[in-house]
Structure formats: C-alpha cells, structure tokens
C-alpha cells in the first residue's frame, strides 16, 4: 500500500466519522480504487457511509406506476359512439387503395385486426386507416392503437384509425406495407411481405403441375416455376394457363404474394396480367441463376428450386418398410458449405463419397426438428463436381460464428457458434426424468409424460439457461454430454452427489459457474413462434477479457479517451 496516497480523503472521512481508524479507512480507499474501480474522490461518500454507525437510510416507498388511461382490451367493451379509444390488437392484414377524398387522391388502408393479441380468444374486426400508418401496421404485428374511434354501419362495428391516432408497435410484424401501384418493384421487395405486387422478371423455369384436391373431388391444373431479377428469384404458382417459356422477360401485374411456411410465392390468378417486356439491359437467365445459388445459411423451410453447391461429410443408406409393406431405401447424410451445415436426403439411389463436392438443383427444403434440411427426389438433381467450388473445410471443427442477434431473427441453423452472457440458470436444470416409451424422450413433470401419462421415467442430465446479448436472448439447452463436459463430472458422479448432499448445493454451484458469465456455445439454433432456442453441442465459459472488450468498443465507436 502506498503510504499517504489517500491522506486527503482519509482526513475528510475522519471529519465525518471521528472514531474511525485511519489505517482502515485508507485500506478501504485502496480497495475501492483497485477492486471496485472507483477513484478515491468518488468513493468518499461510500467510505464515509461504511464507517458510520449502520443506520437506516430509508428511501421513499416505491410501488407500481398508477397511470390511468382510457383503455379497453376487447372489442366487445366498445360502443358504437366510442372515441379516443386505446386498445392493443394483432394486425391480420393490411391492404390499401387510392380513394378520392374531398377532391384529393389519398391512400386508404383497410383490413382486419384482432383484439386480445397476447392470449385467449380473439375477435376480428375490420378497420380503416385514414392516417397513412401503413409502416406501423404490418401484418402479424401487435400494435397499440391510441385515439382511434368506433364506426358503426349497417349494424356492424369497425375501427377507424385517424390522422391524429397513435400507433405504437409492440411486436414487429413481417413484410413491407403494400402500396397500391402498378409500378414494378424488385423481387427482393416483393418477397418481403404478403401483398399485391407488380414485377418485371425473367422466367427461370416453368412446368405444368397438378394440385390434388384434399376432398378427393379431382385435381386442378396449375403452372409452377420461378422468376428472377438482379435482386433475387421467387417461385410462382399460376392458376391459369401461361404462354411463357424459360428465358422470357415478362411484366407480371397485379399478382398476389403469399407465404407458404417461411417461403414467399407469387400467385398468378384471373386478375393478373402478364405481358412481354423489353429491356436489353436486363440480366440473362444464366446471370440470374448464377446469382441465385443458395448457401446453407439462407435455407428456409418450404423453399423450392434450390440450387446449391455442397461438400458431403457422411452418407448412409437406410431401408424401411412403408405402410403398404413395401420395402424402400432412403439415403441421407450431413453436408456443408462455408456458411454452415445441414442434412441432405435423397429419395433416388445416389451413392456419394464423403469429402466429395456436389451441386444439387431443384431441391426442396423441409424442416426437421426445426432445422431446414435439403431433399432431392430424382437422380439427375445431384451432380458430382470435379473441382471444389470452395476451399477446404475441417468438418470436425466447422462452426460458423454468428451474432446472437442474427440467430434469433433469422431461420433455424445448424453448425453455429455464438456467445452471450448467461442471465438465468433455470431451476429445471440438473437431473430430470424422461419418458421411457419408445420414441418418446419427453421430460416428465411430476412423474407424468405429456403424451403417455404416468410412466416410470429414466434419469438424464440437462441444463436450461438463458443467453443474452443485451439486444436479444435465447433459451440455451445443454444436454447430457456437453453438460458433463462443461461441469467436468460424469452423469453418475453428479447423480450421486445430488443424492447425498441434495439439489441446493448443486444449483448454487451451477449459478456460481454460469450466471453473469460470458459463454461461447457451439450447436444449432431453432427458431419458431415461441422464440429462439440454442441446443449446445459444446459450451465453454469464456475467459474474462475486460481490456480487450473495452478496446474493441473504443475502436468501434472511435472513442477518444
């Protein structure tokens, strides 16, 4: 301890607390400076307080805010003359049209909203947006409407959103607001929402198809295919015969973009106008196809006509018996590209050598256990490449590092590595019981399986935590093997320890080990409407590197200290 360094501060403390020991006071200042990173001048008040007799320093009572607002939570609470209403709703649709209002052409929005957006039974009402709030009324968003009014016409009530109304988005929706225009937009823009669009695009593929009616009343002839421009490509489904061929450049006017699972598709119906378009500068079919090659990172459930280059990691044949007693074979394996890993399933007899490179075409994407997987049906869809399309990838250590914020907002991914801080170690971590019925591994609650009722159950180990970046968060599930490895004890040892000394010490040890720490996790991310979950294949608690973090912050923002 440097003698006399804190003399000035010690003197000040002694003025307030005359019976304090100066050496102790100086020691305390040293502690504040070195351990708590608080300079002596700033620590003064705290140190004084510490050496004073412990007494209560009562704060004011703090309670929940008591702000009263004119609000309802359900449409049924509204009368036909209600004005200045506040309600939270789910936006089910937003359409718009141009309308003459007092001699002026204005864009009017209309569609359906549903009350009770967070839970319970919902009621659907129509609404009209007179206030040009399209940006904030995206389909699937949950918004708070303030200052809206009720309109009743022919005994039917609806909501008017006025120019003075306020719309606050509580939960983001998807897509972009529809704009009623025949001005063409890019494929990228058209792919974002569900709305009526006009596009100029090159026909990349076109083939007749049939849709079988579910009720068995026959089939409908349709045309499927794909169109693209320099911003991307999109599948289309036409309910009427088309006179276009591959390579044609067309203007598609007044088509509906709809989403199947996570994939947008252009629907061509009776009102859609298709005409040839002339633009010499428009990219050719080959150019667009070159551009529209996918990467594993960008695969989404429901995609069709996927073209992608991959390296085979492993390949196995599995035979099984169908319901009709027929014996069939399916081939599948792990594949990778520089952006990640996924599974590839082939229904055709194709034998692939691990390590070889392939190009697949017209593949579809199907989600299995939340991760998008590639599926091919015919043998001609898979082509073995002579030359590697990308550099070598070490498959044993191929983890693509991704920001937690990106993982929580995109599609499900395999083979990712991410990091964040643990903000919760959940109490259902530790030894759990799993259902023993075949094919079921559900976690039992009070000895009950959600599917099979009361069953015996077998013990297993898993950790449930929450990983958080400050902007986004995800559930973190660590199953038995990675949990054993991060704790450094076997399942048997942990079970034994809990049996002898109880759950509490184990839980506080888990908290001690993880809570508040930064961790790096390798595994897969699964996104669904309940949020993001990361399944760890391995997990490490990161070293503490405050100086490195501070330096990167200084660099990122150009801070001058």
């Amino acid at each position, binding site marked *: 301890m440097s003698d006399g360094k804190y003399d000035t501060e010690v003197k000040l403390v002694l003025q307030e607390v005359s019976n304090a020991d100066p050496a102790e006071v100086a020691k305390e200042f040293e502690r504040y400076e070195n*351990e708590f*990173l608080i300079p002596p001048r700033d620590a003064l*008040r705290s140190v004084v307080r510490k050496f004073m007799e412990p007494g209560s*320093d009562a704060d004011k009572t703090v309670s929940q805010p008591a702000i009263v607002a004119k609000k309802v939570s359900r449409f049924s609470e509204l009368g036909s003359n209600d004005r200045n209403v506040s309600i*939270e709703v789910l936006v089910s649709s937003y359409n718009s049209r141009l309308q003459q209002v007092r001699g002026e052409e204005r864009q009017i929005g209309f569609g359906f909203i549903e009350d009770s957006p967070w839970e319970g039974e919902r009621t659907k009402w129509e609404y009209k947006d007179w206030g040009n709030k399209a*940006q904030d009324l995206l389909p699937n968003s949950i918004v708070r409407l303030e200052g809206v009014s009720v309109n009743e016409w022919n005994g039917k009530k609806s909501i008017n959103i006025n120019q003075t109304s306020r719309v606050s988005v509580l939960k983001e929706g998807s897509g972009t607001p529809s704009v009623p225009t025949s001005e063409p937009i890019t494929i990228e823009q058209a792919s974002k929402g569900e709305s009526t669009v006009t596009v100029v695009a090159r026909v990349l593929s076109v083939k007749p198809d049939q849709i079988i009616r579910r009720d068995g009343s026959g089939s409908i002839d349709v045309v499927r295919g794909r169109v693209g421009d320099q911003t991307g490509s999109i599948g289309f489904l036409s309910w009427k015969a088309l006179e276009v061929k591959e390579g044609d450049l067309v203007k598609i006017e007044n088509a509906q973009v709809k989403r199947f699972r996570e994939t947008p598709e252009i629907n061509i119906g009776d009102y859609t106008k298709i005409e040839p378009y002339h633009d010499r500068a428009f990219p050719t079919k080959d150019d667009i196809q070159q551009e529209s090659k996918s990467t594993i990172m960008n695969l989404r459930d429901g995609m069709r006509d996927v073209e992608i280059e991959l390296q085979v990691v492993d390949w196995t044949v599995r035979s099984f018996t169908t319901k009709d007693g027929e014996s069939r074979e399916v081939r599948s394996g792990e594949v990778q590209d520089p952006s990640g890993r996924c599974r590839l399933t082939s229904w055709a007899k194709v034998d692939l050598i691990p390590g070889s490179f392939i190009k697949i075409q017209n593949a579809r994407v199907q989600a299995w256990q939340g991760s998008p997987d590639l599926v091919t049906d015919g043998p001609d869809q898979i082509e073995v490449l002579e030359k590697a399309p990308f550099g070598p990838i070490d498959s044993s250590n191929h983890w693509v590092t991704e920001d937690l914020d990106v993982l929580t907002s995109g599609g499900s991914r395999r083979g990712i590595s991410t990091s964040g801080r643990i903000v919760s170690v959940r109490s259902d971590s530790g030894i759990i019981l799993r259902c023993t019925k075949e094919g079921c591994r559900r976690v039992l609650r009070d000895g009950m399986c959600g599917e099979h009722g009361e069953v015996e159950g077998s013990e297993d180990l898993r950790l449930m935590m929450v990983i*958080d970046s400050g902007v*986004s968060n995800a559930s973190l599930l660590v199953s038995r093997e990675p949990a054993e490895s991060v704790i450094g004890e076997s399942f048997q040892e942990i079970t034994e320890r809990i049996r002898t000394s109880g759950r509490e010490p184990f839980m506080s040890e888990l908290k001690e080990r993880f809570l508040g720490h930064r961790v790096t996790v390798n595994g897969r991310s699964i996104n669904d409407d309940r949020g993001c979950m990361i399944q760890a294949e391995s997990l490490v608690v990161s070293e503490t590197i*405050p100086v490195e*973090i501070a330096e990167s912050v200084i660099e990122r923002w150009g801070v001058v200290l």
Partner: protein
Amino acid sequence: MTFSNPIRVGRQSAIRVFAHEYRDATLPEQGSGEYDPGFMVTRLGAKINRALIAGTIDSSERRESESGQSFRFNLIDVTGTHRVEVSPFNPELHPEAEEIHARFERGDRFIMMVVGKQRSFTTEDGGVFTSYNAQEMREINSQIYAEWLAETADATLRRIDAYEKALTAEQSMAGFRGAGIPEDLVDGMLLSRAHYPDFESEVYMLDVLQALNAALGRSVEIVNRSPEPVPSNPVVEEKPPQNIVSENGSAMSLDDLIISTIAAGDRGEGVDYDAIIRECSVHGHSRQDAEDAIDSLRAVGGRISEHKFGWFRLTEV
C-alpha cells in the same frame, strides 16, 4: 406449471444500462393487458423491461411489511446508484439476500451483478422514481465487473449514436429506420423523442468515458471537461428548470446552480449528493469546486441542509 415451460414466450432481453441513464428516465410505458410487460423508456431511447446491472454494494436494508420481508440494496457504478429491491414475492432470492445483508452489516463491501425488472413510482406532482426488482443476483469479481462496464459503455454508445441520428431524422418509424437506427431502439426512441426535451448526449458520454477508463484499469476522474457552461438539460426532469439559466441567458454562479438544482429536484426527500455533483459537472464545474460550494452553502451560509446523510434540501424556500 406454465412457469416451467422450457421456452419463455417473448422474453425481454436484459438491457445493459448505467445507473445514471436509468435514473434520469421518467417515462413509464405500460401495456393495457394484465400480462403485458411494463417498460421504462430512457432519454437515450432504451426501452427497459429487464436490465443487467452491476456495482459495489453501498447500502443494504431489510424491511418487514404486511406482505412479508423485503430487501433493498444500493449498488454504485461509475455513474451513480442502482436501487435494487428483493421483493416479498420472490422468496427464492431471500436466502441470498439475507446473506448479502449480513455481510454488508459486518462491514463487507463487494461487487454484485443483478438481473432486474424495472419498477417505478410516480408521485402526485409527476416525479418518477426508478428502481429494479431483482430476479437473479450474485457477487462478481472485478474482472467480470470491468467486462460489464465495457459492454454497457458499448450499449450506451449505440444509443447515443441512435439518439444523434434521431435528432435529424424524420420523426416516424420509417424515418428512424431510414436513418439507420437499430430496430430494437426505434420504438423507444420515438417514445423518448415525444416525451423528453432535447438534450446534449454529452452527459452520457461522460459515463462512457469513465466506464471505459475503469475497464482499462485506469482510475481517472473526469471533471471540468467543458469550460463553457452547457445551458439547461438538468438531470432531474419533469419540473421545468426555470432557474438554471438566468433571464439574459448567461450562466449563473455555482451556488445558485446548486440551489436551483435542489429546488427543481426536491420531491420531499431532498436531492442526493451525487445528483448535485453531476449537475454541476454538466455545467462545467469541477467536482472539487462543487463539493466546496456545497460545504460552504451548508456550513457557512446555512442555505441548504443535509437532513439525512447524503441528501440535501433548501432551508429557505
């Protein structure tokens, strides 16, 4: 059993925020539904439901009430004080809280990290007091604390940057998105811009600089950074600070500044020492000068009194 559902629906992320920014916040935002999350919107547009905070324990209190036992801890970071409550409705945390309280009483001081839910209290005259309800807490070492300082500096810089962009952007969701404000800050920034008067983000830059210096292991005090007094923008909101700048716009004396800060900020309990010092530093006075001025106002002039340790009010109104 809904609480043990492995996936929490729409869990709110733990915002990294310094004590100063949160304490300045006066805009609670509560949805109308029973289970809607409540938020506190800060001047920099953070919409806080849950926060990750850290600091050295500086006071501890145990209370008994009709609803049961509760605890209050004050944690200080480089920018001010976090107020944390462990409520009677959170008994799982009570054994830990009990131990922390006992250690504090024995004179032990240590750094804590807390995952807290925002809570606030609005007085009749519109004053807003903010604090946190602890959900998770633990003692941490100074290395992790230093990481938190750096991370929180990063988050604060991101908000300062967004605020600067918001000042010149069209005041709408689309306008903010177009100006490059991150998606998670758009809504909070709109609410903030509609509620708070304009201010110089410099006040929060000071926090960032102090935190980064501390994280780098440099213990420096940053005072008297701007020789020119910055007009207006008191730390305490709601009541218009009529007195901070005198009629002709010129800066007033340090004594007057302290007195008007207390006048504007006192909602019954007085104004705390740190808030006064901070206000003085915003107006370009060094900590030393401010401390001396407070001392002389208290001792010599008798114009302010320290009725409770660290809390000041005016003796003449």
